[in-house]
């Protein structure tokens, strides 16, 4: 088990690159991504695990980065919205009007992207189970549904 109390230098793997950062043991992954690495596409919405705006992929699974300590991310592959690089879901969100203010968007993109990889055959029930982790206050979710379905059905 890792144990440290002062600021320490750790290695993380973010968006396919190894980075070295100095962290406090109490820093969340969200904090480190934004404040130390400048990856501000990942958003704080509640810092309490309720909104999903901070979702990133950890070894391919959507994880709320406000609930994970940066120290726990050592040895895992982190992907943020900045690491998506022309994923079909991004285009699909644009073409289906899947956002307005865009603040929740990174989080939704990460969940949808992982869903497509992990459950390419997801039915409506599975989609719902996955996407209920996130909140959007601007859209009525209809467009997000269209966007994720277009990707699952390989229409993008």
């Amino acid at each position, binding site marked *: 088990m890792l144990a440290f109390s002062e600021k320490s230098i750790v290695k993380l793997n973010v968006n396919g690159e190894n980075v070295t950062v100095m962290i406090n043991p109490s820093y969340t992954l969200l904090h480190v991504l934004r404040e130390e690495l400048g990856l501000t596409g990942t958003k704080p*919405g509640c*810092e*309490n695990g309720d909104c999903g705006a901070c979702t990133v992929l950890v070894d391919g699974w959507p994880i709320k980065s406000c609930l994970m300590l940066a120290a726990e991310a050592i040895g895992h592959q982190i992907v943020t*919205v900045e690491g998506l690089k022309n994923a079909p879901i991004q285009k699909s969100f644009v073409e289906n009007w899947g956002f307005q203010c865009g*603040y929740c968007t990174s989080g939704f993109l990460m969940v949808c992207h992982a869903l497509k990889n992990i459950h390419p055959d997801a039915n409506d029930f599975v989609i719902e189970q996955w996407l*209920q982790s996130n909140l959007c206050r*601007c859209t009525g*979710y209809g467009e997000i549904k269209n966007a994720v379905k277009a990707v699952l059905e390989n229409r993008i």
Partner: protein
Amino acid sequence: MGYIIGKNIVRKEAFNKVTGTAKYTDDFITTGIYHAELLISPYAHAKIINIDIFEAVSSTGVKTIITGSDINVLCGPLLDDMPPLAKEKVRYHGEPVAMVVADCEQNAKAAVAKINVQYQPLQVVNSVLNALKENTVIIHENLQQYKKNVPDVYPEANSNICSHVKIRKGDQQKGWQDSEIIVESSFTLPQSDHAAMETRTAQCEILPNGRVIISSSTQAPFSVKEQINKTFQVPIGVIDVNVFFVGGGFGGKVPVQLEILAYIASKAVDGHAVKIVNNREKDMITSPGKIGLEANMKIGAKKNGKIMAAEMHFNVDCGGYAEIGPRIAKAIAVDCAGPYNIENISCDVLCVYTNHPVATSFRGFGHTSQAFCIERMLDKLAAALNIDPLEIRMINALVEGNYSPTQVKITLSNTGNFGECLNKLKTLINWDEGQRIEENNNLVRAKGIGCFIKTSDSPTNAISGVLLTFNSDGSINLNCGVVEIGPGMKTTAAQILAEKMKMDIGRIHVKMEVDTQTSPVHWKTVASMTTYMVGRAVLSAAEDLIRQLLNAAATVFKCAPEDLEVADEKVFLKTDLQTYLTLKDIVHGYQYQNGNSVVGQIMGRGSFIMNQLTFLDKETGLGKAGPYWTVGAQAVEIEFDTQQHTYRILKAATVVDAGKVLNPKTVKGVLMGGMCMGLGLGTSESFIYDTEGIVQNTSFRTYKMMRYGENPDYLIDFVETPQIDAPYGSRGLAEHGIIGIPAALANAISVAAHVDIINLPITPEQIWRLKAGVQV
């Protein structure tokens, strides 16, 4: 017409928003910036006996600690009743009491925990009803001494009433005499939260040369300037407010609160840059939310359904401070009759202080609450007379030649065609199949209707402006003071310009950020007025450009400007389309072959000011509050389980008279978002207080909003009755999706469960209590 109007235009910043590169206020990571953290009141009403900061001051990293006694100002948009940090007493749960400025967030938080405040709890005014009782506790002892920032706010001495708006239209006595049936009811609607996904945040730095640089997640950067100027006597010209993308506003980012605190904090540390960021809890209770409302309504009608008279009492719960509450009271009064023609109206709207969190503008600006009451009344009247609910709305529908409650004449242009909205709704929701249909397994499918009418209640002199410059390739830069909070207004502005210039919208570059030093003033990005106001300014700026382009080309061609025309980035000779100048060759001056140059840089200016608006008469409400109305009809279809008292929402429908739909997918998106939020208000959203006025649900775990999959199928249709003075006939349309939805849901459930819904939100428990006759 129709070059680009009516087409689905992807918002300009779309790809930045799906790559995480679109920057919001708190995304600019600055090393060395100080953090301000608030200590908030754990009481709803209490005297502050003592604030002990001794231990906190010497806490690691602390630069300074500020409390109410350090600041001698009061602020507020209408009435100066609010100290930035509580002074002597606290008036709501969550009110800022002290502010720590430290080198980082962690240290600021640690220091806040070391401040010791001694309170003496006072009796809590926990409802409007209590606030209005005789000999009740007075929340603002010095109400009459507060400075008014506008003439039309009317605080009442020795009371908790911070304003009173009256409507007196027609002849009450005659109205009631002519009535053959009278329906009465009261309603109670709770306070709730905007819950924009981005919490509110502000930063301030005061430069050695005196400039005050603020960045903020505000919908109203120019109000920030004004309030800082007014509150601290800083010359308005040195205040610069920068706004980037805003992560949802819904009215909640109009109040100027964190900006004032950031200014105070920066001032206290010699102008060093300081940022203040709401965590979710503070965003919900410390910063303003949505009003609560209590209403008593009485409607008189003929047996044929025609409404003859209405008497309405609305009491707005604005919380501990007035904020924009008196304006919401006015808005409720102005549209109190809904989209119906009522000749004889007596309406009183009080804006009432309570010890609840402060309320401010919220999507719909009071209309959602007002519509809930009038729309429930219409259904009750229909039931009492055994008339179809859609039919009774048709019978009373506002038409051209009627008069609004404030006695403005209704025209097709200034209001649209409400009857046609009802007609289309009837088809859209398949009304004719029946309002209540019993199905298998104790299930009932039912529909309810809720309609809306809304004008804005802007200042009578609200302005907007646009500046256009050219790039050397002939493309245009568009600069306006509108904030991009989500609905895509910047793209709409570009679309209107592209239509007018007859050019490709891809060649119009919109300045997304607002910088109040260089962007022309735009009143506020609120009230569904943006397209109208900035759209008019865009058109006037484009006309300015075109006039200059024609003159320039006329010089070159040695012809009259009238012989020329602008399109496709060219100036043509009308009689010979092969003879033209491309814009890029003239916009920065035209150069003859010998090197001589003429004309110079072409720039466009456009401006708009509201016209013909008036203050309302204090006694009768007579006057014109807004430039036009938008009307529409909505419905909700549910499936109700008669055993469990649970329900599912199957469909939500909206038909609105848009005048002209500029960008269909964008407009539909905004309407669907509104419907979804309206269903949130209908099903689950409300602040829950304990007996001492303490809000119990200050996180998204306990404050429930609609999530993916809980949303219904959305049905949307439009009527297009042009508004003559609006850009391409397009009526303002943004907030409206929310307005009639809670009412429509309540009407559907009332019919499905045979209950009388008079409160929100509608939980299965509430339905069960009503059915079983069990009191809370």
